């Protein structure tokens, strides 16, 4: 056929391309004998069909002979191994079909595919399908963030980081969110323990009230704080009299962050304490530990992972809070406020590196906090499915 191509009146390829394609086809035929059992016609047919599709898409549709050469070699090499063939298809799909979202789709599909291979083979089809559909949905949710991450070079991010206002905003965000998470921990841990250990009339209602900051629109919360503590309000005037400014200060930012992020740590801590059987505490008491000592030596260590997880969520919510802060304490600017200001001033392309930088810092901190959970002692949280209670 390649000889025929060479003598065609109007040759479809240059001589060089034709020569390369000839050798590629020779290699494919030679390798296919090893990779595909040619006596099994279905598999051999699938192999040929795939190869034909590859040719059709890359040569006839996109006219990309070099890419075809590369992918044809990969195709032959990977065809015999299921996992590798899957990787090949993802690579092909992402970089040929899903342009201009090649990197985004490649990363998400690879994550999905690896997750699929890690699902236990004994798992029922329904559980497997539910997981995969869920994972696919999760991948779509993360797509905007991943796409944002692909937009800027390291150099432009470093340049953005050199700006003093950006550094200040990041420092304000990190500092205030850590302070608010610490304040929350001091309040939420004993509160959650009490909630987990005692049933009382109205407990359901208290649980609903804990959820209130999630339900209330953040702008509404911001207005509520202004009315209660803002300039000219009764409490705001009282605090101003003592030289404590709230609205438009670090204190205001921390108050807003504590408000919006409190449900996450409280709910996680309640679940973590409920997972610690009371009998451990009884045993500790009979061994001579007071209630407080039992709490510190037994209950808290056993619930620590769940609490830290809640703290990480609360921290993440605090640092990313915008709606309440922009109304109640927009100065000094936190990072989300600066992203917003930058967007209003210069549009999406200018605010993008800043948003990206902020995303990286948040993700890094969040991973660190997650990693820290594994340094904690044994936890009763997240027992394996099917393990003895």
């Amino acid at each position: 056929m390649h000889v025929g191509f060479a003598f065609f009146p109007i040759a479809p390829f240059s001589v060089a391309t034709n020569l390369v394609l000839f050798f590629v086809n020779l290699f494919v035929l030679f390798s296919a004998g090893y990779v595909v059992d040619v006596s099994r016609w279905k598999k051999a047919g699938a192999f040929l069909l795939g190869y034909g599709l590859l040719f059709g898409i890359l040569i006839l549709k996109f006219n990309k002979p070099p890419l075809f050469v590369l992918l044809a070699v990969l195709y032959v090499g990977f065809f015999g191994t299921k996992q590798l063939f899957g990787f090949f298809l993802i690579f092909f799909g992402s970089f040929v079909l899903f342009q201009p979202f090649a990197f985004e789709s490649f990363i998400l599909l690879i994550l999905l595919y690896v997750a699929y291979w890690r699902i236990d083979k004994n798992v029922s089809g329904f559980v497997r399908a539910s997981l995969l559909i869920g994972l696919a949905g999760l991948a779509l949710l993360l797509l905007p963030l991943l796409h944002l991450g692909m937009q800027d070079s390291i150099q432009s991010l470093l340049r953005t980081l050199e700006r003093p206002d950006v550094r200040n905003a990041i420092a304000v965000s990190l500092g205030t969110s850590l302070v608010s998470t610490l304040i929350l921990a001091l309040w939420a841990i004993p509160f959650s323990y009490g909630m987990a250990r005692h049933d009382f009339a109205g407990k359901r209602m208290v649980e609903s009230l804990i959820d209130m900051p999630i339900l209330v629109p953040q702008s509404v919360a911001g207005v509520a704080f202004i009315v209660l503590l803002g300039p000219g309000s009764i409490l705001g005037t009282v605090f101003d009299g003592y030289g404590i400014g709230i609205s438009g200060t670090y204190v205001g930012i921390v108050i807003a962050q504590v408000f919006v992020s409190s449900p996450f740590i409280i709910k996680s801590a309640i679940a973590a304490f409920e997972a610690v059987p009371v009998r451990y505490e009884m045993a500790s008491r009979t061994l001579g530990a007071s209630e407080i000592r039992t709490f510190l030596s037994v209950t808290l260590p056993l619930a620590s992972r769940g609490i830290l997880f809640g703290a990480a969520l609360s921290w993440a919510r605090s640092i990313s809070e915008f709606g309440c802060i922009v109304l109640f304490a927009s100065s000094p600017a936190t990072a989300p406020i600066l992203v917003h200001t930058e967007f209003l001033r210069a549009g999406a392309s200018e605010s993008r590196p800043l948003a990206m930088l902020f995303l990286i810092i948040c993700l890094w901190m969040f991973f660190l906090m997650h990693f820290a959970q594994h340094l904690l002692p044994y936890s009763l949280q997240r027992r394996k499915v099917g393990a003895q209670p």
Partner: protein
Amino acid sequence: MIRMADISSTFGSFQLRGINLTINAGEYWVIVGPSGAGKSALLQIVSGFKPGYSGKLMRDEVDLRSVPPEKRNIGFVFQQDVLFPHRTVAGNLRFPLELRKIPRSEIESRVEEYATKMKILPLLGRAIEGLSGGEIQRVAIARALIFKPEILVLDEPFSALDHNSRIELQEELKGLRKTFGFTALHVTHSRDEAFSLASHLAVMRSGEIVQAGSCEAVRSSPASTFVSEFLGLTSQPIA
């Protein structure tokens, strides 16, 4: 000496009524009775986890009503696994000694002594997760005895074990008693376990003690057909 005088209490719809029992130093009391007789409920009062009761609970001349569980000096062995999973076996044994601020060297020597006695010396560095049921109860007994409590309270400690482990642990408990001479209050629904361990027996039914006394006395003179039948005795009730 532990003395219970006319103790009554309510646990939901269940009532404990007029419990009288005196446990002298060195005695091994076994409270035996069918499920739901109130045996474990009585232990809750003795250990201080159920403050609401009428009557008197005395340790020598001290009324225990306002004494919290940690101050009662009771070694408690629970029915279920209550070893702290975030500590190793040795860490569990050290726990009550650390609370009493015993010097480090004495803690280590005592841990070794009790681990040797309970045949758990090779387990000292192990995590709790992965121990067998028998090993868990050995560690639990060692932990409950290591701080030399005034009385050892055992709430159906062998009920989750297989027959062989149960017999083996009963024998070891007897051996430990010979060595340390502790006082014990043991609750079980197994008459074999009761006869194997008890110096004194109390038989409970529907929240009441229907007969209490030395093991020989109860065996030779059961107070009622229920006692006789529950304990599988051939001797007939007195009246």
